[in-house]
């Protein structure tokens, strides 16, 4: 079974803090993705990566950056958290045209 894990299920941070969300997959997938999920908006792609050190912007990259130093790990970084980044963050990796998702991190920015 494909396993995608995320470092935290719940996080509470203060406005202006730097926030790291970590994602690890164990299937040697080349492609990894970060989404945010908000009620009524579905999932929106923030960034994705095709390979180590490769990244591309998704639909809503503003206020976020990413890092992929190892194939199995894809990190999402909020350089200076703001209250409008309160959301559910989902990581995915893909192989053979199918994405597999982690359990999500629910982030609250106060």
């Amino acid at each position: 079974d494909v396993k995608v894990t995320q470092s935290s299920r719940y996080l509470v941070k203060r406005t202006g803090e730097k926030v790291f969300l970590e994602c690890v997959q164990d299937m040697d997938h080349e492609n990894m993705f970060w989404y945010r999920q908000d009620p009524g908006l579905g999932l929106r792609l923030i960034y994705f990566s095709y390979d180590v050190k490769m990244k591309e912007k998704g639909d809503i990259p503003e206020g976020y950056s990413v890092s992929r130093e190892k194939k199995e790990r894809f990190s999402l970084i909020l350089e200076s958290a703001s209250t409008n980044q309160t959301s559910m963050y989902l990581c995915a990796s893909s192989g053979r045209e199918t994405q597999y998702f982690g359990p999500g991190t629910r982030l609250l920015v106060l």
Partner: protein
Amino acid sequence: AQSVTQPDIHITVSEGASLELRCNYSYGATPYLFWYVQSPGQGLQLLLKYFSGDTLVQGIKGFEAEFKRSQSSFNLRKPSVHWSDAAEYFCADANFGNEKLTFGTGTRLTIIP
């Protein structure tokens, strides 16, 4: 631009009744279509996918979906729902080649006894 529409925000069904969740896609070329389910507080689990071939696709948990090119639809069905099917369901379309998914906004399913 690619888009996926799920016209029903919320559906309520009695336990044991049949279910159909609607999904329409807009991408003109051969679509790669998916249905995912999300239980409360959880990530997304793949129910089924369609790439080519037989237009009726079987998935996990007793779900099936039918691809209809003439209607640009990929509706999800289950003949008899169980209380454990209460969840949010997402339809998605993929761009072949880069595996990016475009998601619909989801349909929340409530099951009543």
